[in-house]
């Protein structure tokens, strides 16, 4: 905590420096305009809203730049970014190629933090023994093919655990959500049947189960109904002390979901040097990597027609990938970006442009 505070102070003092550098590189004509930005607006994903709000608040205190963020949902974030009504968007699901074409390809996905989805269940007979599942079994459960808890596919993964002869009641998110997207993106990778019959998305045609609204709705439903299983965000499960399952990743290792194992999933990605960061990190295989995890992104104009705003956004992003800002993320229960990803993102931020030329600094 002490160390963290010191790190933050370090960054606070370096920000005026960054502004000075940026201004000096812009030439005399634009030097004033970088400082002229009174505020930035953004809109999008609800899942990272707590950390974004906190970041923007910290950044405002450090620099005086006000960033107004509205958590209207990823769909709205992409729409408003495309229409140009906000300075940046935010989304849990990367933009499709045709969506990127709608903005002339002038968009860069910047990963900010990592979210993970955990399977929470209600099996009182298990006591404290954690359940272990693998992707194929989870997919079969949500396809409605594994209908009883003592199914041999579940018991094979949990030797010695007394599984009850009870119906598996599935609980899914009825509201469109990034959580559903991450979960079904994972299932689509591990199960061809899931991919063909259901697919990946924020709202889906679920083959079985009941729909509950929001993390809290799913949690409540699972808590009330014995034999039920649902999926919620990691943060939500941690703060509500829910029982959640370990999941076998691609290398066969049973991984308990945590901030560290979610970060490990991102660390294992084999990044291309020119990646646009629209990478799914579900079904990761690295050591200790939890397989149901995903980045959440900010949508930034690669070439911002407004040099002052371009510079302001760039400075914020530089701060955001700093250890100080990323530490705040883990404080709030979001998995921070692993070092290799931070390095890649920093390179990409350095290459941002405004009005056709590089942003100074």
């Amino acid at each position, binding site marked *: 905590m002490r160390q963290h505070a010191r790190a933050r102070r370090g960054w606070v003092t370096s920000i005026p420096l960054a502004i000075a550098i940026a201004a000096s590189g812009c030439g005399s004509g634009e030097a004033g305009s970088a400082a002229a930005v009174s505020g930035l607006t953004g809109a999008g994903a609800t899942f990272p809203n707590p950390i974004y709000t906190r970041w923007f608040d910290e950044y405002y205190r450090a620099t005086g730049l006000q960033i107004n963020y509205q958590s*209207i949902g990823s769909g709205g974030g992409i729409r408003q970014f495309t229409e140009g009504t906000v300075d940046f968007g935010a989304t849990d699901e990367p933009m499709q190629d045709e969506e990127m074409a709608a903005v002339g390809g002038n968009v860069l996905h910047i990963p900010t933090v990592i979210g993970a989805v955990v399977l929470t269940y209600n099996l009182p007979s298990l006591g404290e023994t954690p359940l272990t599942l693998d992707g194929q079994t989870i997919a079969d459960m949500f396809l409605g093919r594994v209908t009883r808890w003592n199914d041999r596919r579940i018991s094979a993964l949990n030797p010695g655990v007394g599984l009850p002869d009870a119906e598996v009641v599935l609980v899914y998110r*009825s509201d*469109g959500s990034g959580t559903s997207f991450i979960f079904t993106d994972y299932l689509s990778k591990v199960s061809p049947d899931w991919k063909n019959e259901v697919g990946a998305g924020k709202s*889906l045609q*679920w083959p079985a189960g009941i729909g509950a*609204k929001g993390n809290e709705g799913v949690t409540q439903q699972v808590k*009330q109904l014995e034999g039920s299983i649902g999926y919620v965000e990691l943060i939500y499960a941690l703060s509500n002390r829910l029982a959640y399952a370990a999941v076998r990743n691609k290398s066969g290792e049973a991984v308990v979901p945590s901030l560290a194992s979610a970060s490990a999933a991102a660390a294992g990605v084999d990044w291309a040097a020119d990646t646009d960061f629209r990478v799914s990190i579900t079904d990761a295989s690295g050591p200790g990597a939890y397989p149901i995890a995903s980045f959440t992104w900010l949508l930034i104009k690669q070439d911002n027609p407004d040099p002052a705003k371009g510079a302001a956004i760039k400075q914020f992003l530089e701060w955001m990938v700093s250890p100080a800002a990323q530490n705040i993320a883990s404080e709030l229960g979001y998995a921070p970006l692993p070092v290799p990803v931070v390095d890649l993102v920093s390179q990409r931020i350095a290459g941002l442009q405004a009005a056709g030329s590089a942003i100074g600094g």
Partner: protein
Amino acid sequence: MAESLTGEALVSPPRSLVRASYGDRIFKGLLTLAALAIPLLLGFLFIELVSGSRLAIARFGFGFITRSTWNPVTEEFGAFPLIVGTLLSSFLALLMAVPLSLGVAIYLTEFAPMLVRKPAAFLIELLAAIPSVVYGLWGIFVLIPILRQTVFPFLQSLLGFLPFFQGTIYGPSMLSASIILAIMVMPYIMSVSREVLLAVPSSQREAALALGATRWEAVTSAIVPYARSGIIGAIILGLGRALGETMAVTMLIGNRHAISASLFAPSYTMAAAIANEFAEAVADIHLSALAYVALVLFGVTVLVNAGARVLIWRVTKRGVPGGHL
């Protein structure tokens, strides 16, 4: 009125009257504007819904109403289960709420001790002021556990031979949502019915009693028929509320795009689906399909209300007194 007055005053109307007529004209103009605002608003709403759903109308046509698939991933949309869910949940809610609220209204106007009438009516009207999300939370935490553990198993053991009461009991279901809807529309129906019953002239009541009718006969033969059209109006108000209710329903209905004979099975309504999926709908066709659902909901509401109006006209045409309201 103002024109006819000035017209009658012929050559030189008194100044005060002229001024009054100007005032009247301005007043009339303002009121006309206010009255026009409502059809205008409706018109804009309709235009916006049609333009928003253009894409979906072009792709799915009227088949949208009869198709049952709702798959945002493959972008196939049909609203049939939503329409059925909306109509059925509202119908079931009225089935429970109407007898109950009418009973309460009649009791409070005809039978209850004077001391109880006002406080009881006030308490029931208070129910209408509770936000629907609070009803939803109460439904999740209190109502559903009771229904799942006690009421539903009892219903199943009693009426399990009917297809409506078969299948697994999860808790969130068509019946749970209908029950919360019934609780929510009750205060509206009760409150308006009570006002209508209070407006029945006491001569009506006294005449029936004087002819030797019992209290029961007075209520069924003289008072309720007199207030019939007003009571139907109260029911329409409740129905409108039930059709459009979103939050409490989505928290209790189980949100499943499916039609099931069992009332214990999860279902879905139009309003709930729009609220659930609108914020995170990315694809244009998905958004458009949701706007189309809103258009259908708009249409269903208009149709149901128009139907109810026709019902009132027919009732009043039969020569039942008190046909106003």
